[in-house]
């Protein structure tokens, strides 16, 4: 097949209304969106009942600090993640340099390391009593902390660095997928029209990749805004700190829900602004997968510079913390043979696997009904709202999950008692179902993003062709769309899997009795400042995370057949 002229089709029109739809898609879409939105709605509802109006107090005291640190944190982490993620993605996709093939997947590895683990490890390494400062003191003969200046790792800068190290892979992942899909013809055209490689990157590749980068950036921002573990550890007074304070120290759950709701609204505004900004340039591409990428040949020194640039994030985001964990684990190898330990690993594995598949299914349902009803405003908004669970701190989301589940359980119980004199007790609360539900709500933004962006690129002509050939919507989905978006879908599944393995705050609150995952087991000790005692579990989280991460990289590379 030749590289067709129609490789990238920029269309401003939306899908035409398709007749003869199964009546189901609209209600299924709405129903699913509502179900996933329940916890978010519960938090909004909680916000209506504060025990006391906390805003006068906040406004006159710490609110400016909260807002300032949150903004610095978001802008800093976002900018750094985009710089690292997009930069390295472009290099490994379009340039030749030593180690390029290894970096393709190695750049994803930091993703397997939980933020709370990396924060702990770097503090250990860089604080006064850590090996780095001891070495410096030995070298220069300094005696105490007052003799020299060393950057404080427990600071907002430290938090930005830690979060960036584990979050930039989101941007890298999506940017790389987008660069890979881009047509070589476009680049060639731009080069022929006189663009330098840089100009071609800046004026052609980057704008085409923008939706993907935006999705990556919004994931990074939401993760940053909902993080509590790292910012708490580093004494950064962000909005999440304010939520916990109102909730646990002032006993005002309603006020905590208000702060959380405001944060969500802030995220919605941010994402909508970005959408509006690029609304007019919707792109449909049929990528020319069959032409191999011609990479830029670089001079030797430049090529080695690329190698250096790509190795830094891998070194600091993965190798150092990994070696450090492995080193600590050596003293506790016996844990690997502990039968409990195996149970925790099984729990983590099962929960993450089930959630990853379920979240993907939900994402497909939402994305497809959104596609079929492209002109239906309310459905579009509902589907977008269902991503908001990601912007809530895990513990707040857990409360949002508890409320509807307990309400359901208690209503069923009341009904059964009244009519059949049987007590059904709690059916869903405190079961693994509650955990899977919470994870789905939390990580739908991730799988949804992946599915949305790949489905968005499938031209509506495909639907029309398939439908005019007599296939109904379900069959079109099954036989046309699913095969086309396979790559994006698998990406979603794998990323959600890794995210679930690391999930902590919601798991702690919602889990059944006597139930541990690897993450909760790690936390039990880490929260008592004894991460050494649980380093094998932390190591296992990372090791298990590596497998999907490598699969992920292969999936993405495979989107472009190199035959």
């Amino acid at each position, binding site marked *: 097949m030749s590289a067709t002229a129609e490789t990238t089709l920029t269309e401003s029109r939306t899908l035409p209304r398709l007749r003869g739809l199964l009546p189901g898609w609209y209600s299924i879409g709405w129903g699913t969106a509502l179900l996933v939105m329940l916890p978010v709605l519960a938090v909004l509802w909680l916000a209506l009942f504060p025990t006391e109006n906390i805003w006068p107090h*906040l406004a006159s005291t710490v609110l400016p600090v909260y807002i300032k640190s949150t903004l610095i944190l978001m802008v800093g982490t976002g900018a750094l993640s985009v710089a690292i993620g997009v930069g390295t993605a472009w290099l490994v996709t379009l340039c030749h340099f030593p180690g390029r093939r290894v970096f393709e997947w190695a750049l994803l590895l930091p993703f397997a390391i939980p933020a709370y683990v990396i924060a702990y490890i770097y503090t250990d390494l860089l604080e006064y*009593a850590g090996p780095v400062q001891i070495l410096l003191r030995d070298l220069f003969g300094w005696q105490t902390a*007052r003799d020299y200046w060393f950057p404080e790792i*427990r600071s907002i800068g430290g938090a930005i660095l830690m979060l960036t190290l584990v979050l930039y892979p989101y941007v890298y992942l999506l940017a790389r997928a987008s660069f890979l899909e881009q047509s070589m013809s476009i680049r060639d055209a731009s080069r022929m029209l006189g663009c330098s490689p840089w100009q071609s990157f800046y004026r052609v590749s980057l704008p085409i990749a923008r939706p993907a980068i935006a999705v990556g950036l919004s994931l990074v921002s939401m993760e940053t805004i909902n993080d509590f573990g790292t910012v708490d550890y580093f004494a950064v007074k962000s909005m999440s700190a304010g939520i916990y304070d109102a909730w646990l*120290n002032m006993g005002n759950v309603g006020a905590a829900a208000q702060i959380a709701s405001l944060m969500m609204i802030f995220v919605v505004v941010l994402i909508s602004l970005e959408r509006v900004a690029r609304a007019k340039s919707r792109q449909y591409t049929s990528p020319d997968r069959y032409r191999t990428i011609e990479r830029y040949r670089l001079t030797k020194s430049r090529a080695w510079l690329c190698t250096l640039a790509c190795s830094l994030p891998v070194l600091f985001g993965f190798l150092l913390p990994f070696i450090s964990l492995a080193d600590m684990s050596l003293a506790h190898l016996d844990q690997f043979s502990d039968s409990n330990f195996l149970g925790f690993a099984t729990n983590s594995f099962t929960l993450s696997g089930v959630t990853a598949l379920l979240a993907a299914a939900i994402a497909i349902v939402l994305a497809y009904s959104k596609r079929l009803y492209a002109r239906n405003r309310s459905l579009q908004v509902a589907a977008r709202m269902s991503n908001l669970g990601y912007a809530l701190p895990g513990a707040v989301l857990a409360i949002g999950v508890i409320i509807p589940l307990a309400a359901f*359980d208690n209503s069923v119980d009341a009904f059964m008692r009244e009519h059949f004199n049987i007590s059904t007790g*709690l059916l869903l609360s405190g079961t693994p179902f509650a955990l899977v539900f919470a994870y789905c709500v939390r990580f739908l933004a991730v799988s949804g993003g992946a599915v949305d962006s790949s489905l968005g690129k499938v031209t509506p002509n495909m639907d029309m062709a398939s439908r005019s050939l007599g296939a109904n919507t379900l069959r079109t989905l099954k036989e046309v769309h699913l095969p086309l978006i396979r790559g994006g879908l698998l990406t979603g599944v794998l990323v959600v899997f890794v995210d679930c393995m690391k999930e902590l705050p919601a798991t702690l*609150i919602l889990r059944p009795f006597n139930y541990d995952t690897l993450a909760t087991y790690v936390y039990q000790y880490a929260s008592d400042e004894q991460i050494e005692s649980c380093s094998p579990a932390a190591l296992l989280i990372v090791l298990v995370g590596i497998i999907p991460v490598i699969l992920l990289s292969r999936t993405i590379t495979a989107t472009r057949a190199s035959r």
Partner: protein
Amino acid sequence: MKKALLSAAVLSATFSTFAQAEEVNVYSFRQEFLLKPLLEAFTEETGIKVNVVFSKSGLLERLEHEGQNTPADLLLTADIGPLYDATERDLVAPIKSDIIEQNIPEHFRATDGRWVGLTSRARLIYASKDRVEPGEITTYEELADPKWKGRICTRSGKHTYNLSLIGSMIAHHGEAETEQWLEGVKANLAQKPQGNDRSQVKAIMEGVCDLALGNSYYYGKMATNEDEPEQKEWAASANLVFPNQDDRGTHMNISGAALTKYAPHPEAAVKLVEFLTQEKAQKLYAEANFEFPVRPNTPWSELLEEKMSGFKGDEINLGEIGANRAAAAKLVDKVGFDN
């Protein structure tokens, strides 16, 4: 006679199988590994199984929304905060037990029995051995003295242990005076409040500061830490100061228990609390974490006996301190303690 014996045997057999099936469900704010030896001892003695969910936040909300159908019988906490909140939100029921009333002094339990202290700890001032003369500081109030400018370290003012300390200052001196005090302490800080209690002591060793606030049990945890032996050095760099020995005594906090309002197994739950107040468990519980038993005349662990015995603890009822925690959190904001 034989028949009577036989039926008694059958009866006791049925009873014990019944007891086997008995269980207590615990929502715990404390790490399971700290509780485990105790709970195992309880199961061994009574045959009652104990199930645990551990989380430091969110369990009160879970209890509240589960309502009458909650499986939880008991709350176990690591300080007064959640006990007080649970009482305020009407989530717990009074425990009526002569054993508990006998074993636990009044200031360590709610007057109506809605919470019970199980172990206690003191909030100490750790003072540098090299740079602070013994007796140079003897009260919390003196932490605001300008002579300590740039020499004090503490974790976040919002941490629950500090909130309770500030709450006790409010109880003794009122809000206005406490605010002034807190401002004074803030002005003396060597660095922005950060880290945990142990890292404050480490900061003393490192020369970052000369005084630090920290709970008493961290001394034991550091001084005996075989996993990270460098912590022994941190502990060795500081003297322990028990503040306010000449007046009200050192501020104390507790770990404790409360019975949930809709507990499905209230008898078994009370049995567990009673068990935890008995000498054997008190000794075990306190030793597990270098805390003090709350039951009078229970022997202390050797290390505590050597380093800490004979101090005077503040006997104000902890409920009063719990009630001041929200006000304390606001004061921390007001003076910008953590900024």
